[in-house]
């Protein structure tokens, strides 16, 4: 098995082992359920805002695992051992991105089906939401890994992570929920934002992890 696959497999195992893949999804469902309570049981209104609700909930759920993506490996010595073996931190960050997407996105997309049912979304809207999530979640995962590397070692890392990550995730939210009405144009922009984040995050995260060793 190549080193990259070994790293991805290990991070996926850690994510599932700590229940890390279950909590964000449960949190996502809970957030989505809060909206009908707040807005009221107006089916037409819920069906209209439901897609946006799913996107906002997905964004909040993506924040939950940020604290444990890089921090524990930084102070647990794992990153040191990888660096001594000559692995670049950008490669390690790319592996973390892939592993985080694998343990976060598929369960989230399954949960989105349940949320769509609770919000009374039409099948057509649900399909658009799922396509948008498929394109947008790699970008969310990239942001999560980069943020996690930047705040690793800070006190109150979780709170700082929210302040760093949420503003940067706004483009994903705009184009993601925009694709529900805007159609193909918004999806293309969502894809572009997601691609830029996925391409840039490993280098940002890698540099932050490297600085954190000093």
């Amino acid at each position: 098995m190549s080193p990259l696959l070994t790293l991805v497999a290990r991070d996926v195992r850690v994510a599932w082992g700590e229940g890390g893949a279950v909590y964000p999804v449960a949190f996502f469902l809970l957030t989505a359920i809060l909206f009908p309570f707040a807005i009221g049981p107006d089916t037409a209104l819920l069906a209209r805002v439901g897609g946006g609700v799913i996107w906002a909930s997905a964004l909040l759920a993506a924040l939950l695992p940020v604290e444990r993506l890089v921090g524990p490996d930084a102070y647990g010595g794992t990153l040191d051992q990888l660096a001594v073996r000559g692995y670049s931190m950008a490669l390690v960050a790319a592996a973390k991105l892939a592993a985080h997407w694998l343990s976060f996105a598929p369960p989230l997309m399954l949960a989105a089906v349940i949320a769509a049912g609770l919000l009374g979304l039409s099948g057509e809207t649900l399909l658009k939401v799922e396509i948008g999530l498929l394109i947008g979640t790699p970008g969310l995962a990239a942001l999560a890994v980069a943020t996690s590397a930047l705040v690793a070692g800070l006190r109150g890392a979780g709170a700082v992570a929210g302040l760093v990550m949420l503003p940067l995730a706004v483009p994903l939210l705009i184009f993601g929920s925009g694709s529900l009405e805007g159609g193909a144009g918004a999806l293309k922009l969502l894809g572009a934002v997601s691609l830029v984040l996925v391409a840039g995050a490993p280098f940002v995260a890698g540099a932050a992890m490297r600085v954190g060793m000093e």
Partner: protein
Amino acid sequence: MSTLLAFHGVTGARGGRTLFEGLSFALRAGEAALVTGPNGVGKSSLIRIAAGLLAPAAGSVETGAPRALMAEAPALDQARSLGDALAFWAALDAVPDASTRVEEALAATSLTPIADVPVRLLSTGQRRRAALARVVASRASVWLLDEPANGLDMASVIALETLMAQHRADGGAVLLATHLPVALPGAQTIVLAP
């Protein structure tokens, strides 16, 4: 004989504070260096500079061979069995036969009977031996050991000394930082003073 690790006028600093200045030494095959000095004098920083994790404030570090590091942090996944946690690292070393290397390293550190025990259930001393087993399994020529005797019982310290002697006989080199008495015959001594 080629140099495995050399410091050329290295200055070490942490947080803007200079710990040691102009340090030079070289390790060739079979050689060892013992770094001593009181707490906080920069022993761990020296080891981290030798490992390439910390950049020297001045001077340069020359490395001619793969290095293996044993630091304070165990870096073993808590939920996995000891054997699996070590196998993960062995698979990432740039040498073949990961499973054979892990088995031999477990035997060399007397950890074979507890290879199936999850890392989180291990005692302090067992974790230290596990970190040593990772160094052995890596087959790296240069061993960088930061306080390896911490938490070890007397029998384990003797086993550590035997492993280091064997490694040097096989053409390896050892850089050892410790404040505990560890036998390292014929080693050069680097005394760091505050």
